[in-house]
Every structure is written in C-alpha cells, then in structure tokens.
C-alpha cells in the first residue's frame, strides 16, 4: 500500500515536471473540427486523442497532464506558505507566552470555528482570482495545525534546564529552535504537511471548479471538471478523466499521510 502510494505520487510529480515533453498535444490549442471527439486509440497522424477532446477540440489527456502542474504547484506552495506562517506564529506563541500567546491561539480557535471556504470565497471574489491570491488563501487556511504542534513543543522544552543552560552560556533563541525544537517536531511537521498537501490540492480544485481558482485557458483539474459539466450527457470523458485523477491523488496523498503518521508519530493519531 505504502509502496503503491509512493509510486503513484512520484508518477504525478514526474508527469507534472515533464508535462511539455509527455503531453501528446498542445493543451490550449483549439480545433473546431475535433470538438467533443470520443476517446480513441486510432488517429490518421499517429497522435490519437486517447482521452478524447473537449468542447473546444482540445486534447483532454494533454490538458490533464498540464493540469497536474497547477495542482502540485499550488498545493506545494500553499503548504509552504501555511507551514511558514504556522511555524512562525507557533514559535512566537510558545516563546513569548502571555498576551502574544493568548492572541495567536484565540485567532487559531476562531479560524477553526467556521468553514474557511466561505472566507476564501469572499476574499477571492474581491481580490480577483490569481495564482498568488490562491496560494496565500489556501496556505493561510492551514496554518493552525503547524502552530499548535510547534507551540506545544516549545512549551515542553522552554522550562527544561538544558535550555536555561544554553541561554546562560550565551546561546541564542535561534540556536534553541534550530538544534532542539526543530529536530523534535520534524516528523510531526512532515506528517502534517502531507495531510495538508492533500487538502490544498482538493481546495484548489474546488475553487477552480467554482470558477474562483485557476482561470481558463490554463488547464486545471477542477476547472476541467467544471468545463465538462455542460457536456456530461454527450461527452462524459471531459469531466470524468480529470476528476478521477484528482480523486486518486487526494486519496493516495492523504493515505500516505496517515501511513507516515502511524510510522513516525503515533501520538498524533487521536486528532
């Protein structure tokens, strides 16, 4: 299971990186004569539309391959943004304590107290959809877990004698963070980041499906499912192909996260 998952994720990553080389057709090139062509293995020029074409005659397989880039780019970038914000706030809350701690943790509770997708919709509606907005909004939707883990680790270590000793010897806070806190939370961070990646990919696809994410003609999995909606009856492949890949990616990545958690950090299991 773990091996299969790893191979699948690797396959998606390679596909995304090598998209221009692998894709049999130009993902945005339209062809009125080839509109809504069904999946086929035969073609006059040897370049078949294996997964058919969409309503503008674009090759579905090529768009799906390029769509992997969008999903992974936004997904990884959002995880990095969320991780940096969450880690910084978590460390700040832990070390500063007092007011800073109370404020940051209240903010975290408040954010968890209502569905973030609504806020994301409001923000994107006003700022307009773009890659940076998308990455920041999706990233910020996931900072809380990182912050909690780092904060609790700081609280555990802060009062320990060896930390006092480091301070007494003139060691900086940065040294405590780099040498003692990060190594302790690294495995938790890896688990959280994996689970967050699955969530970010689905959130990006959902926003793109709603027309608030990646804008056409750039291909994205969620956007493709949206485009194919009108043609479900006559050309089911437009929506189904990217949807199935999205679903598989989400399931495999989150299962990998579960597996990593059981392997690296059984204490997280209850959450």
């Amino acid at each position, binding site marked *: 299971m773990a091996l299969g998952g790893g191979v699948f994720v690797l396959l998606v990553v390679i596909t995304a990186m090598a998209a221009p080389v692998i894709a049999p057709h130009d993902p945005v090139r339209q062809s009125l004569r080839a509109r809504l062509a069904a999946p086929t293995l035969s073609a006059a020029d040897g370049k078949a539309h294996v997964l058919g074409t969409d309503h503008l005659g674009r090759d579905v397989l090529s768009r799906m391959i390029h769509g992997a880039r969008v999903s992974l780019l936004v997904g990884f970038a959002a995880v990095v943004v969320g991780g940096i914000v969450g880690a910084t706030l978590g460390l700040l809350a832990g070390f500063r304590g007092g007011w800073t701690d109370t404020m940051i943790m*209240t*903010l975290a*509770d*408040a*954010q968890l*107290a*209502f*569905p*973030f*997708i*609504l*806020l994301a*919709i*409001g*923000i994107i*509606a*006003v*700022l307009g959809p773009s890659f940076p907005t998308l990455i920041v909004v999706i990233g910020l939707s996931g900072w809380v877990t990182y912050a909690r883990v780092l904060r609790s680790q700081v609280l555990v270590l802060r009062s320990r004698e060896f930390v006092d000793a480091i301070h007494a010897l003139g060691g900086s806070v940065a040294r405590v963070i780099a040498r003692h806190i990060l190594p302790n939370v690294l495995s938790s961070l890896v688990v959280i980041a994996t689970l967050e990646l*699955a969530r970010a990919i*689905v959130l990006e*696809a*959902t926003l793109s*499906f*709603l*027309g*608030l994410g990646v804008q056409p003609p750039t291909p994205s999995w*969620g956007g493709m*499912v949206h485009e194919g*909606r009108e043609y*479900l*009856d006559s050309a*089911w492949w437009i*929506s*189904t192909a990217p*949807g199935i890949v*999205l*679903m598989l990616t*989400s*399931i495999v990545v*989150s*299962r990998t996260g579960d597996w990593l958690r059981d392997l690296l950090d059984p204490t997280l299991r209850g959450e």
Partner: protein
Amino acid sequence: MRGLLPFLGSRLLRAAVALWLVSTVVFVVMRLSGDPVPLLLPPDAPRSEIFRVRAELGLDRPLPVQYVVFLGNVLRGDFGRSIHFRQPAFRVVLGYLPATFELGLTAFVLASLVALPIGVVSAVRRNSPVDQVTMGLALVGQSAPTFFIGILLILVVSLKLGLLPTSGREDWRNLVLPALTLGAFAMASIARLTRSAVLEVLRADYIRTARAKGLSEALVVTKHTLKNAAVPIVTITGLQFGTLLGGAVVTETVFAWPGIGRLAIQSIYNRDYPVVQCTVFLSAVLFIVINFCIDLVYGLLDPRVRSS
C-alpha cells in the same frame, strides 16, 4: 453543575471573538476591493454625483469611524442594498436560507441514518469483510472532492440510469442526489468515528465483566456498549452538521439548488458584494451558533469536558 458557568463563559467568549474576527475580515476585504461607488452609478455619472454618493455611504469619513459604523450596521443586520436584486442584502439572503436548511438537514439525517449502523456493525464485526469494505468506502468518501462526487452521481444516476433529476428544487426526488453528495463526507466521518468509539468501549473492563456474567452478545452490545459510546458519537455527529455548511456552497452549485451557497457564487459573478458579504457573515454566524449549541450539549452530557 459545578464548572458549567466558566465553561459556558469561555465558549461564549470564543464564539464572540470568532464573530468579531469574521466581521473585521469582511470589512478589511471590502476596503481592499476599492471604491464601490462606480459600481452603483451609471458609467457616465458626473463627478459631483460620485462625491454625493460617497458622502451618503460615509466613505469620505476616516477609516476607524467607518469601521465602527460598519460594526454597528452588522449588529443591526444592515449589509447595504443588493446591486443585483435592488433590495436590502439581508432580506435577499434570508429568502434563500430555507432551501439551504432543507438540504443541510436532509443530508445530515441521511448521513446519520446510514453511518451510525454501519459504524456499530463494523466495530462489532471487526476485520470482517463487511468492516473492510465499508471502512474502505468511508476512506474514499472522506478524501474524495465533494464536487466530483456530485458530478459522478449526476452522470451515473441521472443521465445513464435516468432515475433522478439532475438539478432544481421541485419535489423529494430533486433532494436525493444533492443530499447524498453533501452528506458523503459527514457519512464517512461519522461511520469511522462511530466505529472507533464503539471499539473503545468494547475494550473496557465492564464489557469483559458483562460477557463473563454470561450475558448474550446482543445484550452486551445494545445495553452496555451503545449507551456508553453514545456521548462521543453524539458530539462527533453534531460537529459534522456544522461542516455541512461549507460543503453546501459546492453542492448547491453542482445541482443548481437555490440556497445561499449558490447565491454567494452567483453574486460573485454579478459583482454583488453586499450579498456576498452578507452570505459569508450569516453562514459564519450560523456555523458558530450551531457549534456553540453542540458544545453546550456536550458540556451538559459529559462533565469531564468542562475542565479541559
């Protein structure tokens, strides 16, 4: 009832902070969006007219003053007038609320009715084929994107099998697919968590005692296990109700269900910001109120939570 008041207080404070935060974000985002006045007026309106409307809306006053006025308006349910519907945004959103409630409630009841028995059976028949198949499906249900579940149901059930309509809101048949789609995530979560709650109780010493007394397995499960597993299950199930609200946006869009989720998306396309803000705010209020009520019930049922 010792400890209930402080518990209540802390939960109330948290709910209030969340509400204040939501309204502040709404305000900031609104200001980031730039001047709304040109949207309200015809494109060839004279400058004097623009200044008049700006003063009328209070946009010429300092930001802190605007913020206080905004908070006051929010408290009175005044979100401005809808540009598209030409009536107060609050009234527009209220008109779309019943459809969302109907869908959310149906999805919730459906999810609970399916998931609770499955969770109990999976726990009692642990590692049986039934357990493995249902828990496998639950994993898929938890990680599959809601919008794609909806698309698949439309494709298979409506278009290929011709059993149910694809969209709209007429009779009960229109409700089945959206409720299944919206409830899928909740169903999967409730089934998995019910299973683990029941398993937890089955491992307890008093269950071993009950079995040792020679009680029948049926009696052990119904009388001794379910009663004790009920508290966590009720909470988990309740919490799922709140998360349904977020999924409503997607589900309503997929099935053209005339609720506030679809209204929000359409208002974004119409650039009808007062309605968008009102929807976001009202949904947040609903979500926070529902979670607050669940917290209360939980605190009443299980005194241990109050101290944590």
